[in-house]
């Protein structure tokens, strides 16, 4: 100690040394004991983690027309603590946003530092709010999934939720490819909580979602939707669907459902409207299923086209049950049994095949199994094993009862007849592309499986042509293009288990032109009223679609061939 220091100075000095020692102890305590949590608190005050949202991939049609894109829209939020005159702010904001004043005031009165005022507003509204220049009101950009074609192809495309997660259709099935990977930017913020530019000390860039290229052709889809809608409204149907397919590759060119919904505003539509009936609904096909019975009978040579069957003049009692034809027929050649869709003739012919062989062909045509289309929610349909069949089952199934199918299964089955006997797998996605444009995954058409021989397929095409030419589907006739197909009118089953006399499923499955098929078209109408015949309700829809498709594909009409007489045995 220096000489001459007074005791008072010494006391001050000791006090300072003690205070300094206490500070050192406190510093050691802070550094050793509480450094991490305190450092975290400090970081949270000046560090800012900014989420970098990826761009959701685009969905294109086969001609690279955009079916689903993402745009950035402005969302408006408020920090109620910073707003002084909340009543005035609410009045101005509600006018600019078109929202209720009381609701806006309620939001601004919350004891929170962040309140959404409106999410994803139009640019005009965002500009109007910005021009108000209210302190405490801020904006953020958020991506919004939009579908430029509205209801068109909505069931195939699906939709996303407010956070851009796929909820239905292809948006759901390919969500992991479409959504991309979000990124982060750790930035520094100033005392007013604003990001300080140029002080990003860590950045992980987002990876944009991949794009999907579909097999759907938006023009074909539009044509199909238009004609389906006309038929659906004309016959006051409960539901309906149309599938247009390339019979050789299985490419889905159009997949339309009614009732439908706008995926831009999916939440407002009832769940029933959002169901993809073409793949999620199964139904008894009725006479459309006779193509399976006829193909298997001809393939197994159990009957020949000219073999004659007595159709009991429209009423036939067998195994304690009475079967009817909608028109009374006497003797009919087998081809005419199909042409006139005689139930009695079909059940008599089916008995020549036997249940095991018939079941084998049902499976070969792909019924009772999912087709594997890249859409969520596909169902199998029901085909029971022959071991569980009753005495009536063989005949019933041949007529399209006791069996349930989906529209997509019917499309594949009729395509097999159109393309020469090969069962194709339906394909709705061609490829997945990175945003740079290079293909990540290509979905080639799967190798088709032979179901029937080319000769049988050709025979079936001729028979199905006669159905349109002179049989039950004359309303599907398209001058110069010679379509072929089969009608179906199936009674629906009432909740008490009996066949309804009021509710029907009207169907028409066919292809065009019959000698060189370019398109397979399936038209299903659920509970049409007051007319319910497939040949009256669904066949005209087929005709309209087929006609417009021919124009679209620039296929010239042919001169009608000379009247031909099919040989009968």
């Amino acid at each position: 100690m220096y000489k001459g220091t007074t005791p008072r100075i010494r006391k001050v000095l000791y006090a300072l040394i003690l205070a300094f020692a206490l500070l050192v102890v406190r510093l050691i305590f802070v550094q050793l004991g509480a450094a991490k949590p305190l450092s975290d608190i400090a970081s949270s005050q000046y560090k800012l983690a900014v989420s970098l949202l990826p761009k959701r991939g685009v969905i294109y049609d086969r001609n690279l027309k955009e079916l689903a894109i993402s745009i950035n829209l402005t969302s408006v939020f408020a920090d109620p603590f910073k707003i002084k005159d909340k009543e005035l702010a609410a009045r101005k904001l509600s006018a600019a946003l078109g929202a209720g004043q009381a609701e806006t005031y309620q939001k601004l009165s919350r004891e929170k530092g962040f309140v959404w005022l409106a999410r994803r507003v139009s640019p005009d509204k965002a500009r109007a709010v910005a021009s108000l220049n209210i302190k405490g009101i801020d904006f953020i950009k958020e991506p919004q999934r939009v579908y430029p074609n509205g209801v068109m192809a909505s069931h195939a495309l699906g939709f996303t939720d407010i956070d851009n997660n796929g909820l239905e259709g292809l948006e759901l099935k390919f969500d992991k490819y479409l959504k991309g990977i979000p990124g982060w930017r750790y930035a520094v913020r100033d005392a007013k909580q604003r990001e300080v530019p140029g002080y990003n000390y860590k950045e992980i860039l987002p990876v944009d979602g991949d794009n999907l290229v579909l097999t759907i052709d938006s023009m074909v889809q539009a044509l199909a939707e238009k004609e389906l809608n006309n038929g659906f409204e004309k016959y006051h149907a409960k539901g309906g669907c149309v599938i247009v397919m390339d019979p050789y590759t299985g490419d889905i060119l159009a997949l339309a459902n009614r009732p439908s919904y706008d995926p831009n505003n999916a939440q407002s539509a009832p769940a029933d409207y959002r169901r993809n009936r073409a793949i999620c609904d199964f139904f008894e096909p009725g006479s459309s299923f006779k193509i399976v019975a006829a193909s298997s009978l001809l393939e197994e040579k159990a009957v020949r086209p000219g073999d004659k069957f007595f159709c009991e003049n429209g009423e036939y009692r067998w195994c304690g049950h009475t079967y009817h034809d909608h028109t009374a027929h006497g003797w009919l050649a087998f081809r005419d049994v199909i042409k006139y869709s005689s139930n009695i003739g079909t059940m008599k012919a089916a008995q020549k095949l036997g249940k095991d062989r018939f079941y084998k062909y049902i499976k070969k045509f792909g019924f009772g199994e999912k087709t594997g289309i890249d859409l969520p929610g596909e169902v199998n349909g029901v085909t029971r094993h022959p071991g569980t069949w009753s005495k009536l089952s063989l005949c019933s199934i041949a007529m399209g009862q006791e069996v349930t199918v989906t529209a997509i299964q019917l499309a594949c089955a009729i395509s097999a007849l159109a393309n020469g006997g090969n069962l194709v797998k339906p394909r709705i996605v061609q490829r997945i592309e990175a945003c740079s444009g290079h293909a990540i995954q290509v979905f080639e058409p799967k190798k088709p499986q032979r179901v029937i021989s080319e000769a049988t397929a050709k025979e079936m095409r001729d028979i199905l042509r006669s159905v349109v030419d002179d049989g039950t589907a004359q309303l599907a006739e398209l001058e110069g293009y010679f379509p072929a197909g089969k009608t179906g009118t199936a009674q629906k089953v009432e909740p008490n288990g009996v066949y309804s006399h009021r509710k029907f499923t009207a169907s028409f499955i066919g292809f065009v032109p019959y000698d060189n098929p370019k398109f397979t078209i399936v038209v299903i109408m659920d509970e049409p009223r007051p007319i319910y015949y497939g040949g009256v309700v669904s066949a005209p829809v087929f005709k309209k679609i087929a006609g417009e498709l021919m124009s679209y594909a620039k296929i010239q009409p042919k001169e009608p061939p000379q009247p031909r007489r099919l040989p009968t045995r």
Partner: protein
Amino acid sequence: MEKNRNNYCQRMLALIFAATFTAVMYVNQQALIYQMGLKLKTNSDIYTKLVDHNKILVYNVLNLSSPVTLERRLLAKEVELSMPSKWHVVKNDHSPKKVVLNSKELAKKGPLSNLFAKGR
């Protein structure tokens, strides 16, 4: 003794000057970084805004050119497009290989003109 003291003072002054200069340069550099960051951010904001605006316009164009919208607009004007009947189609076996349309004629062609023939 006096000389040593002067040298010491000079060194101290130089040190203080160097430290001050370094500090000023550092602050200047930080200010420049901030300024540049602000400029980049402003440019980036403008770019993003333009891109977003462009996307919204693209969406509007897609929406307007959508077959569904076109159909609705045509029906509202009571124009119904349908496939040509046989009597609409003129078959010309001696047609030239390619018909070249001038820009005015091309402008007249509607988006669906190659798909449908107009008829009432």
